[in-house]
């Protein structure tokens, strides 16, 4: 029997980012070049694969918040998949539920950071 895969998550990602995750053939180029892959619990290509098969655990991964949107994966993907946009879509699914990953009140010595760091973090990690 052929099991049907759940495409809901992939559809949602497509709606938000315009990226078709089924382009990915799992070569792993994105993970090989990712500068923060060592800090991630799931590698970028694993995240993509989870979205392909509709595994909602992709949304619980720390990786999507560690991704700093440096676009290395996006310029290198041989299939033209914009991986950074997929990561952003996964973040936005969470953020649009009203769940934020950064509380500026809890940051120590907030005045030592340049604005560019604070605004960037707020825009990526809160809604």
């Amino acid at each position: 029997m052929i099991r049907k895969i759940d495409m809901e998550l992939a559809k949602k990602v497509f709606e938000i980012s315009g990226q078709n995750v089924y382009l990915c053939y799992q070569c792993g180029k994105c993970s090989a070049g990712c500068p923060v892959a060592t800090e991630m619990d799931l590698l970028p290509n694993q995240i993509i694969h989870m979205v392909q098969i509709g595994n909602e655990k992709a949304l619980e991964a720390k990786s999507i918040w560690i991704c700093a949107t440096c676009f290395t994966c996006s310029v290198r993907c041989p299939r033209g998949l914009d991986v950074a946009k997929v990561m952003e879509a996964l973040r936005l699914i969470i953020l649009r539920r009203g769940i934020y990953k950064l509380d500026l009140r809890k940051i120590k010595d907030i005045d030592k950071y340049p604005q560019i760091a604070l605004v960037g973090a707020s825009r990526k990690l809160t809604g």
Partner: protein
Amino acid sequence: MKKFMYMPGCSLKNYATNYEKSAIGIAKKLGIELVELERWNCCGVVYGLASDSVFHQIAAVRNLIRAQETSKNLGNNKLVTLCSMCYQVLASANHRIKNDEQALEALNKFMDEEEDYRGEIEVKHFLAILRDEIGFDKIKEKIVRPLKNLNIAPYYGCVLVRPKEAAIDDPEDPIILETLIETIGGNPIYWPFRTDCCGSYNVVSNQDIVKKRVWNLIKPIRDEVDIIITVCPLCKFNLDLGIDFAKKEYYIKNIPVLYFTEILAYALGLDEYLDSSIINLLENMIKKEEVKTHVP
């Protein structure tokens, strides 16, 4: 004097004042005037990637509308930025709405108190202006204090060369900063990680990532490098933080991180636009190199 519109962005007005000051000095010396936009606002630092919403483009497009208003009197549609984050956000937003009529219409309707944006502004980074409008060979003629024998590592960071539609040079193998270093008489060293990310805004939420990241970046060049030059105030902040960490943890030597405009201003002899600490630093370094290479 050719006039260009100029958008400083938030960090240049207090964290990175040296960057702005030296750039303005260079522009004057090379015969261009940077006309600061009136009532500019924060560009948003990171480009919103969602294609189902234009919410994150509002800040950038508002600046582009400001530029459109200014360009009428100036007769030049080029908007110059120094911060590479501002550059990427404005250039990417501009690229998107030029190719997405629906998004442009939605934004124009949302900001009905402003005039409609027509997509005529061209966003340029200051480095690209130096290369395309002035030319590095012209700059070379004006160099009075070459940074002889200094090993300078160029750090591009991510957003100046990526994504492709907003890149000022090749995303994988850029050469513009190396050319600049050669122009001012320095010795550009090959740095495989020059376009790798420094960890960016992770510095706020997870500083350890940035410290480890920067240590890994500087590992291959830590002995031979004299100065690292950068284009982005956030890269500078992160590199300083990571180098401090590596000094304590791995006993590396101090590596000063400067903006590319600071070494260029020094080479052009623009002392009045530089901090005295930077002039001293560079003078001492050049003297040290002279002693090293001196043959009696």
